């Protein structure tokens, strides 16, 4: 999705005059899946916050990305419980399958591979989340299946 300055005005307006910088950035992130440079400049002007502070917040919190993310997100939980149950192997397999490192996005902008510190469903470890859908007790075999399915769905959308 391309950045639309008028949409941003709407977001800022919705959050009110005293809008918190973080909630405005969160909404931009949710809409565009990253924080476009122009958007950060506009936010700085509209909220009267120095651009340096916008940049500082945008780079401090993990939820924000300065580069465009993929349409689909595959997130591997690397919390302690998942770690001791083999999350490293699961992540390795996804890295190989997608050809990107954690935090990276495939060239076709379809998939972003992420890790999370703990999603809090430790009983099911290792856990992988594909676009909000949780998959528990992952193994190399199950990851392969998941990835195949995800790629097929992504292909079908086009």
């Amino acid at each position, binding site marked *: 999705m391309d950045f639309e300055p008028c949409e941003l005005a709407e977001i800022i307006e919705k959050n009110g005059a005293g809008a918190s910088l973080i909630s405005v950035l969160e909404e931009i992130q949710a809409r565009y899946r990253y924080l476009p440079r122009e958007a950060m400049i506009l936010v700085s002007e509209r909220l009267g916050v120095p651009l340096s502070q916008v940049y500082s917040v945008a780079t401090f919190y993990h939820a924000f990305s300065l580069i465009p993310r993929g349409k689909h997100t595959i997130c591997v939980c690397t919390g*302690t419980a998942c770690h*001791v149950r083999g999350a490293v192997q699961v992540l*390795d397999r996804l890295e190989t399958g997608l050809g990107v490192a954690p935090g990276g996005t495939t060239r076709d902008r379809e998939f972003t591979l992420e890790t999370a510190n703990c999603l*809090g469903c*430790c*009983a099911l470890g290792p856990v992988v989340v594909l676009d909000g859908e949780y998959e528990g007790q992952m193994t190399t075999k199950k990851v392969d299946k998941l990835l195949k399915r995800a790629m097929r769905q992504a292909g079908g959308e086009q």
Partner: protein
Amino acid sequence: MIELRNPQALVDYRQRIWAATDPQQRRIRVCDGTGCRALGSRKVLARLQETLREAGLADKVEVVPTGCPGFCELGPLITIDPEKIAYNRVSVDDVPAIVAKTIAQGEIIDGLIFVDPVTGQTIIHDSELPFYTKQMRRVLALNGEIDPTRIEDYVAHDGYAAASKALCQMMPEQVIEEVKSAGLRGRGGAGFPTGLKWHFCRQSPGDVKYVICNADEGDPGAFMDRSILEGNPHSVVEGMIIGAYAMGATQGYVYIRNEYPLAVQNLKIALKQAREHGLLRKNILGSGFAFDIEIRVGSGAFVCGEETALMASIEGKIGEPRPRPPYPAQSGLWGKPTNINNVKTWANIPLIIRNGAGWFANVGTEKSKGTMIFSLVGKIRNTGLVEVPMGISLRELIFDVGGGIPGGKEFKAAQIGGPSGGCIPREHLDVSVDYESLMALGAIMGSGGLVICDEDTCMVDLARYFLQFTQEESCGKCVPCRVGTRAMLETLERICAGRGREGDIEYLIELGEEVKRSSLCALGGTAPNPVLTTIRYFRDEYEAHIYDKKCPAKVCKGLITYEIVAASCTGCMVCARNCPVGAISGEKGQPHVIDTETCTRCGVCQSLCNFDAIVVH
């Protein structure tokens, strides 16, 4: 919508709810927590409703989504009332039989009830499961019982009775006195006496004060706070109302992780309902006291669990901690007196006010009162959420409640308190679980994360894992944490890669102590704990890595090799086809060989082999 204008209106409302409730009502409670959802409980729920409709039973049987009762290992969990028949690992395919047999004819389905893995005994009612019988469920009592999105369910179970009592019958000082004499200590990890903290905030001069609920549960391997907010959000709201009244605060915030979407959703619903019922905003229950709560969703920074960083984040700044004093009670959010407590601390408050300080304090040890909630995870049979009395032994917690270690493996250590905590080895299994006893062993109570390690867990790797976590999450403001944890991590990575040197252990101890002593906040101040306790109790494993170049648990990639056992290999070629680096060769039908020079030890071959032909040395 009923606005409760005074305490009597609340009592009347509760009686009307009771009058409309039939205790013999056929109900199916379905766990709708994140854990069971991940196992497919939403599909089970939808299928149940559909099947009941088809069978013409939709108006006779209620299907109630509940919060997490805790036994995540056996999810999706459902309980059928009024008999309280507990079914576990329910799939959509089981639904027709459940409706046709149990609902229509009262027949119990053998394949869905609990079978004790040790005795082979079958158990029909969840109250008889060993997992629950050894617990003492106070804060979690309603988790799994009520629909968290219905305020009526909470009110029916004496919800908001404590707020009514505090606001309309007690002076603020009396409330603080009650919390003090209960002996409640902060459940976020540090264990500071809650009543005293409230007292400081009350004493602080100022017209505007804030209370905050810290729901930025960032410890990996911990999900207690999430489950409370998902399963019983009104208990936290009620606790905050009482606390705000006691301290004279007019505005509250709940700071919650963005990784917990369901908890945010259920809390939003609870706040809306509380407002509609006159339990928030102006003149709560006719007491003249006004208070409201807003939600702030975190943006993914572990350090924001530290109170000063959390407040900076609410203010819209980057979440960097600042030195204390001044403490939040003097100068907190926007410079005003502020009190921050953990989710579990707030959830305990209504129970203390309703049942009295004596009731609360009759459980626990001399200095640690009440119950503690743990998320029991890792290499343990009964993974899940448990609430136990303070002072229980670690052995009872792991073996009686947790069911011990699966797969016939040996218990090695319990990692308690997350990245700030430490490891407790087998020889200290009988330690009493209370703040002081755990501290004496170099660990901490922490927020409730309890990760069990067995013989296959490498303690050096675990220490490296935690340090990698804290290193990544270090905000970078102070040098000891930013540079110190990095130097420690580099050393640990070297040891795990097989390049450990003499003196590394001593260096880690010296540096660790220094990072603890000189860091600005608790993140750096506790980050070395996992390393220091593993050195203290598992020094031999470090020595094996450094001197023998061996990883006894066969985990560290730099110290292991994979080999194909020729006698077991059928030459099916699955491993060769799937090796990401092409390190496996061999003819079809002939035993294959791994080239250890090329092999990256990713373990894919072993996990895909159908004949257990691949071993690790």
